[in-house]
């Protein structure tokens, strides 16, 4: 049984996210009722394109984290298992399938539930489980599904014309699908405006992540795992940009005044992998020992977004995504990234989450942990599902964390 609470935030601006999120979901319900087309999306579907086409996007994996944060996930997962989905299947997928197919067996869904979808959009980027999940939803809901494919680039950023052309075709295919579903014509200028704003916001996020290198750390992962939300789901909006401008200002103020998450840091940690959404207070746990989780491996803006690569916004997106190192990074690139971050953020140890229902991340975490230990960087692996709190054992996790802290303090 989880007895802990949400993460304690160091920044006032972070506390605005729940309101933004509630408004976002309320808006999707409102827009749906007013006749706007609603797309249920996987992560990495470019929301800027949907906004430009006046389509309301709802990102299911995020909704699943909301359910998990409210500690309702076990009920939703159990419902998904009852309708036939194995416990080995992604927790997010189980929850949403339970929501769709066994609504009478789940608690009341947060924010009044999800807006009814007109179609589904899934990105093959980073996760293959999604493809099966979204196909199952398409059958269950009897609505169209569009698969948006992205080429994997084993060596990271690439100038490959083949990859850029393929990505462009896929993006144009997405636009064509949306035109068919909405009856509206795509307006490139609207997308251009969204992309420009999205880039500006990414720049601000990048600066915030650079500022977090300060000692003492002004903003840790306890804040950022919440504060990253607008960038993931409201990209390309003025509201999103304003939020990060405010966040950056608050971080700068903290640095100017020498205010850190903990007053006297004894050790600095990285959290690698998806956190346990039902117990984000784990990110504060080490603060009682003088530690701070400074930076996260996932969801971190690693580089400044490339400037516009082409006047045509679709071609621009295609070139940017293939020329920018980032998702889907290979294991090797991810490891290099983490090793660099350990130096830049002056990290003394890395906590890695091993998520049984996220196959993709599990394998890479093993290799990452091995590489870190080879470099003499202490690591701790915690194996719990990201959403299903039935897999979490407080005593076991805290014993491991306590021992890890003892290890770090013994080394200091």
């Amino acid at each position: 049984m989880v007895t802990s609470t949400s993460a304690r935030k160091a920044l006032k601006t972070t506390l605005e996210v729940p309101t933004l999120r509630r408004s976002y979901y309320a808006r999707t319900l409102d827009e749906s009722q007013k006749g706007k087309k609603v797309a249920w999306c996987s992560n990495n579907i470019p929301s800027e394109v949907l906004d430009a086409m006046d389509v309301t996007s709802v990102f299911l994996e995020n909704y699943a984290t909301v359910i998990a944060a409210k500690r309702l996930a076990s009920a939703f997962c159990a419902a998904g298992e009852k309708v036939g989905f194995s416990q080995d299947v992604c927790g997010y997928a189980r929850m949403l399938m339970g929501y769709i197919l066994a609504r009478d067996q789940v608690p009341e869904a947060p924010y009044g539930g999800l807006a009814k979808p007109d179609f589904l959009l899934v990105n093959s980027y980073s996760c293959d489980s999604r493809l099966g999940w979204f196909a199952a939803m398409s059958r269950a809901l009897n609505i169209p599904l569009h698969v948006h494919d992205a080429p994997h680039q084993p060596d990271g950023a690439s100038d490959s014309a083949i990859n850029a052309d393929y990505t462009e075709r896929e993006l144009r295919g997405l636009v064509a699908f949306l035109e068919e579903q909405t009856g509206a014509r795509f307006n490139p200028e609207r997308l251009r405006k969204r992309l420009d704003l999205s880039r500006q916001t990414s720049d601000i996020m990048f600066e915030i992540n650079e500022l977090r290198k300060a000692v003492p750390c002004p903003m840790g992962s306890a804040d950022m795992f919440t504060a990253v939300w607008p960038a993931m789901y409201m990209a390309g909006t003025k509201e999103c940009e304003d939020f990060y401008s405010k966040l950056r200002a608050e971080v700068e103020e903290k640095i100017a005044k020498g205010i850190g998450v903990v007053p006297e840091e004894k050790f600095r940690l990285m959290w690698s992998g998806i956190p346990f959404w039902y117990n984000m207070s784990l990110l504060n746990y080490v603060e009682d020992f003088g530690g701070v989780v400074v930076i996260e491996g996932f969801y971190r803006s690693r580089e400044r977004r490339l400037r516009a690569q082409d006047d045509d916004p679709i071609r621009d997106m295609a070139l940017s995504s293939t020329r920018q190192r980032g998702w889907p990074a290979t294991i090797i690139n991810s490891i290099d990234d983490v090793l660099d971050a350990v130096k830049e953020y002056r990290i003394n140890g890395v906590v890695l989450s091993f998520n049984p229902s996220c196959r993709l991340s599990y394998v890479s975490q093993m290799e990452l942990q091995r590489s870190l230990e080879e470099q003499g960087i202490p690591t701790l692996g915690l194996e719990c599902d990201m959403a299903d709190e039935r897999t979490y054992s407080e005593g076991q996790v805290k014993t491991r964390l306590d021992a890890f802290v003892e290890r770090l303090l013994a080394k200091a």
Partner: protein
Amino acid sequence: MNRVITAGIDIGAATSKAVVLQNSHLLSYSIIPTGAESVTSAQRAMDEALLKTDKLSLEDIRHIVATGYGRVIVPFANETVTEISCHARGANWLFPSVRTVLDMGGQDCKAIRCDEQGKLVNFVMNDKCAAGTGRFLEVMAQVIGLPLEEIGPASLQAKEEIRINSTCTIFGKSEVTALLRQGRDRQDILAGLHAAIVNRVYTLLRKIGIEPEFAITGGIAKNTGVVKRLEERIGLRVRLPEEPQIVGALGAALFARDRLLEK
């Protein structure tokens, strides 16, 4: 240094242990079943250890460190340290050349690396599954029909080692029951069970690497069948404490002494 009394108390899943130290000298210890009430068990373990001293009372103890899963509920402890660090410290104090410790307890097992001072360097735990723990062997002893203390020596008398396919305690129990019904020899079955448990913990040890010397702590260190097989598997002689179950509490008492020295 004046006479300084410290104590360590280890509240484990199966047993509670207390150790009383006077400076660097082990004065007394106790081992009792933990039972349902951890606080009562902690008190009893402490009382029993004190009874074995020359009229010491709780008030004579300058600093008490609690360890084990029940460490946070010991009302008379001054602080807590995890059993991982305590086993490292305790084993290294008993054998200063020890750098790798395998603690096989009632319901979990841990592979631990320490430095020359007994400080924790790395660790890995298995506490999600009873395989590789005392509970596994208790269940199997019951199924086989032998007292727990006899299964180790019996396993070394086997003519052949019957391969046990299940790593899970529950499924393993079914498998052993089936083998007994087939008339298979108890010693041969025990050989297979002991091999299975050793395979399990060997995987744990490999994850953090094995640096000599190597010690086993926890109740299973008393099982000669496990110890001998591990020695053969690892290719190292195992250092065995005289009373392996108290190593965690000993480490805790040593940490208590360290705190006083720091002050």
